[in-house]
């Protein structure tokens, strides 16, 4: 429908215009959905469906040889916090071991996030202040580790920090120590591994926001008597906060569910959530509990994301 020239009254003209606008909105709406359809389909099949399955499994009972038996139970969730008495099924005693694993995972992921931030921020700053032509080369170097499989990279790390590895050979060769320092299979080894594997996830978003930073703001701050440190704290970091938040999310969340790194470098002794869940689907043969742990992890992540988004959103709108 189009607005014709010979329409008689203003009211008719208004009505025609409104109809034309409605028509256009309908078309825009249809186009939007057509564009979104592939993504929605994919997320539905490989995201929501497995999630629904996990949700169902978590409310069933474990089968003796793995798998599930189809009877409803909240046992998996109870097991997360309590031990069931061997003789009297109604007696529950608090068992903190899984909570401890969660706490340690959160702690390790947090420390790794802070670590990658401390290493990654200066790196990103360095790249962002290079001449435009050489920045791509530096970015390429940052993403270079992605060319090798994470498993292999982690294994290489293991070779470096183990008792007979490069680090200890060096330390003993120089004479700093005369016995190998036990790095491997400690929280510190996991921490190192996490920083190593997640560093690019911090550098890239921080770089993206640093690159957009208007360096005239830095000049303005210098001009207004801010020393280097204060320019960084008062202007550069606040202006790149979105990149920092994105980087922290990108490191913290996968860090929380990391599997390979704690498995290899923590020696399976120092369990993180990821290993604990994997264990349930493997040797422990407790699929419902594995599913429940996975869902609890997800709920925690969603909650944390929600809090971070709300807080950073508020900061954005209130300065």
């Amino acid at each position, binding site marked *: 429908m189009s607005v014709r020239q010979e329409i008689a009254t203003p009211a008719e003209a208004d009505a025609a215009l409104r109809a034309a606008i409605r028509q256009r909105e309908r078309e825009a709406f249809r186009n939007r959905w057509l564009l979104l359809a592939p993504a929605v389909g994919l997320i539905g099949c490989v995201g929501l469906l497995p999630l629904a399955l996990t949700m169902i499994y978590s409310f069933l009972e474990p089968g003796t040889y793995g798998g599930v038996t189809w009877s409803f139970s909240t046992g998996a969730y109870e097991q997360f916090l309590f031990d069931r008495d061997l003789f009297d099924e109604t007696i529950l005693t608090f068992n903190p071991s899984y909570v401890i694993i969660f706490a340690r995972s959160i702690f390790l992921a947090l420390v790794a996030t802070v670590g990658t931030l401390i290493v990654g921020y200066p790196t990103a700053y360095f790249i962002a202040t290079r001449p435009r032509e050489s920045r791509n080369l530096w970015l390429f170097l940052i993403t270079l580790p992605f060319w090798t499989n994470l498993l292999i990279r982690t294994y290489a790390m293991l070779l470096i920090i183990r008792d007979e590895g490069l680090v200890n050979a060096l330390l003993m060769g120089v004479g700093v120590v005369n016995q190998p320092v036990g790095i491997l299979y400690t929280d510190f080894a996991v921490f190192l591994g996490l920083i190593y594997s997640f560093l690019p996830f911090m550098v890239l978003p921080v770089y993206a926001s640093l690159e957009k930073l*208007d360096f*005239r*703001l830095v*000049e*303005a*701050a*210098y*001009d*207004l*008597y*801010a*020393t280097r440190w*204060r320019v960084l704290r*008062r*202007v550069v970091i*606040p*202006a790149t*906060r979105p990149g920092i938040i994105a980087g922290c999310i990108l490191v913290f969340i996968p860090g929380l569910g990391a599997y390979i790194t704690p498995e290899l470098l923590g020696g399976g002794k120092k369990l993180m959530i990821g290993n604990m869940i994997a264990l349930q689907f493997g040797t422990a043969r407790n699929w419902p509990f594995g599913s429940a742990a996975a869902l609890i992890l997800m709920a925690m992540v969603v909650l944390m994301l929600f809090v971070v988004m709300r807080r950073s959103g508020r900061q954005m709108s209130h*300065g």
Partner: protein
Amino acid sequence: MSSDDGLIEIVNVTKAFGTGERRFLALGGVNATIRKGEFFTLLGPSGCGKTTLLRLIAGFELPTSGEILLDGQEIGHLPPYRRPVNTVFQNYALFPHMTVAENISFGLEMLNKPKAEIASTVERMLALVKMSELAGRRTDQLSGGQQQRVALARALAPQPKVLLLDEPLSALDLKLRKEMQVELKRIQHETGITFIFVTHDQEEALTMSDRIAVMAKGNILQIGSPSEIYNAPAARFVADFIGDINFIEGQVVVAGEKTAQIRLPGGQVLTARASRPVEGPVTLAIRPEKVGLRHADDDDVPLSGTVTNLVYFGSGTNVHVDVGLGADIVARATAPKVALGDRVGLDLHVTDLSVLAE
């Protein structure tokens, strides 16, 4: 070298960018003295080094050679945060994550001023630039003119000895620009702070400045009051850059102390003002509005010719006259009673006709 009222002295300052093959001399030996409390303008075409000179004074660049003195102290090698000089940036460079008031208080906080003093200064600055109502606004929610005012208040708040302004009005539309020109003058008057103002708009320079330095290709060609620059340009470039002007080539026949007699190719002899003894071939310059239109047969007119063109522009008409010198001479009059093809005489008064230096 130092004069009584010189606040800033720029002594033989050069600035080169790049090295080797790509070395580029952006400033080639600049000398200037900027007086306390004046509105000093750097005027020149794009790329002549105005911004570079300003950045050297602010401390964002270091001079390749030469000295910059403030109150007799060498400041040319201090970092920006050690110079009592503030800048209003061309694109304002307001901190986007801070409110208007926070932007203005930034410099005072960095100087570790007491809280009460900061609060009262910020309030005063807000009032000065008429932005008190918008103190709590974020700067990205301001119009161009409002951002301009905040940038000004932010730079003035720490009470610098010198305020540097790099084409602060160029992003504004014409009407706002005229308004801000008046505002800037008022603010400069009220605060008494020395302003160094950069523009490539000659009209803006003429209306606002106490003194103007005209720059070209990394050099200052002339420093003087607007009327000196306009009426007695020292160089052909200066004369040409500012307003419309007629050039007349000739040979010096008699050189006096303040004046010289110049013979034109057509044999006519003109008397012109010369600031120094001159000889050989020279160029004379005269503004169109200073060229008087007379009857061709008046016996004391030095030049006469035919009207070739009449260009009306509202407040007056430009009369183009061919006097046989190659280029036409333009006379500006409010309501000339001449027609195309008329023969007219041109009156070139000695005080308005000056001999250019080169």
